[in-house]
């Protein structure tokens, strides 16, 4: 069985008396360590698919297996546990908590897991350093640029050592240069730890970072395209590169 397997997935919304098919009949397999992009226009159902893969929404019909678990069948508590252990999220609007410092924001998934504060802070700081924000651990989101905020978001997604990262338009609010930085960072970290990255976007540029591009139109997968990623990090030099990039920026 593939790492992620989606079978006969359907999602129907009711709008008054009308049924709206957000997803019609999705079958999809994604393997471990793959960078997979779900590409579609607004309203194509790509976000719905991501939400269901992440267990944020229940499908009307069908199964979603992640790492052997059918998350469509989990109850709320088990889903929370599943998210703690398997998933990381990167959002378009970062979704950081404004009152918390970068350190506290990144530490949240560990806090929910019940990791003691001392260990948590150690791991969180290491992760902040890995995304090049070690100096900014005490800063609040409002004191950081969009790119920096998204790096905090990435650190938060990776800190709990998940198996799969979900990224919903992660660069939607960023300029071209920062987009490149953020995408490289994210892909690089996934490659390094052999994590699966599921990327939802309408941007072809972004899709270029993926191994495979899943085209989705009106709730149906129209084609799956193999792709040669535009950016492949060099082995073992990644840490230095991150630092360099940070230095250039400052």
């Amino acid at each position, binding site marked *: 069985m593939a790492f992620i397997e989606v079978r006969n997935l359907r999602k129907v919304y009711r709008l008054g008396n009308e049924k709206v098919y957000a997803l019609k009949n999705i079958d999809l397999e994604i393997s471990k360590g793959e960078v997979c992009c779900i590409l579609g226009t607004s309203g194509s159902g790509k976000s719905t698919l991501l*939400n269901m893969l*992440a267990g*944020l*929404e229940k499908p009307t019909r069908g199964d979603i297996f992640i790492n052997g678990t059918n998350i469509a069948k989990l109850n*709320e*508590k088990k889903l*929370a*546990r*599943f*998210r*703690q*252990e398997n*998933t990381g*999220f990167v*959002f*378009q*609007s970062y*979704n950081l*908590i404004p*009152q918390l410092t970068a350190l506290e924001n990144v530490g*949240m*998934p560990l*806090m*929910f*897991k*019940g990791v*003691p*504060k001392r260990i948590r802070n150690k791991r969180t700081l290491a992760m902040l350093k890995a995304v090049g924000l070690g100096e900014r651990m005490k800063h609040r989101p409002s004191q950081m640029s969009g790119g920096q905020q998204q790096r905090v978001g990435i650190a*938060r997604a990776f800190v*709990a050592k998940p198996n799969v990262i979900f990224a919903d*338009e992660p660069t*939607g609010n960023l300029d071209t240069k920062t987009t490149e930085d953020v995408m490289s960072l994210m892909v690089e970290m996934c490659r390094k730890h052999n994590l699966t990255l599921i990327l939802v976007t309408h941007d072809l540029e972004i899709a270029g970072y993926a191994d495979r591009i899943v085209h989705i139109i009106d709730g149906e997968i129209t084609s799956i395209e193999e792709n040669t990623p535009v950016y492949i990090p060099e082995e073992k030099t990644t840490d230095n590169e991150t630092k360099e990039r940070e230095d250039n920026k400052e």
Partner: protein
Amino acid sequence: MKISDMLKMCLRNLWRRKGRTLLTVTGVVIGSCAVIVMISLGIGMNKALDGMLASMGDLTAINIYNFNYGGASDEEKTPLDDAAVEAMEAIENVTCVIPKLQVDSSMVTIAAGKNDRYKMSWADIYGVDFSLFDKMNYSAEQGEMPTEAMYKDAVVFGNEMAYQFRDTKKKGQNSYTWKQELPDGTFSKPFVEPVGETIMFYINNSKKTDDEGNFLYGGRGYEHKLTGTTILAMDPNWETPYSIFIDIDLAKDIINDYNRLNGVRNTKGIDYTQVKIIVNDLDNVAAVQEEIEAMGFTASSMAQIREEMQGYLGIIQLVLGGLAAISLLVAAISITNTMIMSIYERTKEIGIMKVLGCFIGNIRIVFLMEAGLIGLLGGIMGTLISYGISAVMNMLGSGVFASMMGIAVEDSRISIIPIWLVLLALVFATIIGLISGFYPANRAVKISALEAIRNE
């Protein structure tokens, strides 16, 4: 999530909206203040009542008198005899039963001094078990309580009784003394200072009288030579001042001797004049009294009066407490309101927490903690302020209840806050907070993560 993390999160949330938190806490402060002060007034009133009753008599005592109002003839009346005493001793919570046997004043002549110069014309003479004397809360003003070896030879005087001795060698006013306070603060002296004196009990012959109409003594063998051991201090029930106490067995002997001397037939045996029952606790007095009355005796106790008065006080307290409770209810509603507002503000945060894998149970606990903490904080501040209010009231209104009841009490505080009331207030305020937080917490838990994080 660790408890410490949840606590920290909830403190941070409360701190984030300091002003609003403070206002909500103030509501609880007012509510808990009102409740604490009202209850403390109630406790003060009860204390004053008990103080008043205690000054009127022993609260744990029940007195049973050997008479009945029902108009029943002597045959129908339940005899107050040894069997009855035993039955009373068997009642639950009874500490001791003290029968009293009165020796009629006409049966004996009490005399003292050389050649029986001083005689007592009249006295209430009671036979009691001296070993139970301390249970009756009697204490010595002069001399010492009779010891076991001398029970049968001892005679104990009420503090007015020494003045009942008359000088037979004098006439008119000069033959009497009165207890009166002298200008130097001491009291006038009676003819006989009974402690340590020999006191003679002569059994009277009811058929022979002297010139003044006093009975004459029955002759050799019909006298008892006793020693005055004690003058009793005034007791709370005012039972002793005009009484003389001898051992109960001696009293029985005297009555039997008298009956033999004067040919009185007694077929019923000894019938006690009065029985005093001491109950182990104030709160059990009513139940014991009921049982005794069911046995057919006439009984009276201070507890009965206390119960009635407590009933009235209870109604007053209920009204006051009810008013106070309303303010606490308002505070509870304001906690709920604050929490709901807070949830609206934090919808996105809650959504993010859910997406990142926070258990909904933890979210619920954080919100309950916040509400509970508002309650607890209000409770703590309310308690402190209540102490202040209580102190001011005691300063201004000291002794108000006592003077209302027309007595002086040692503890004249009108508001009393015992430690249990403080603990109760804190627990209660916290519970109010938790209950108020219940609905908002459930709302927080139901927030859809997806809605909350949806891109704006």
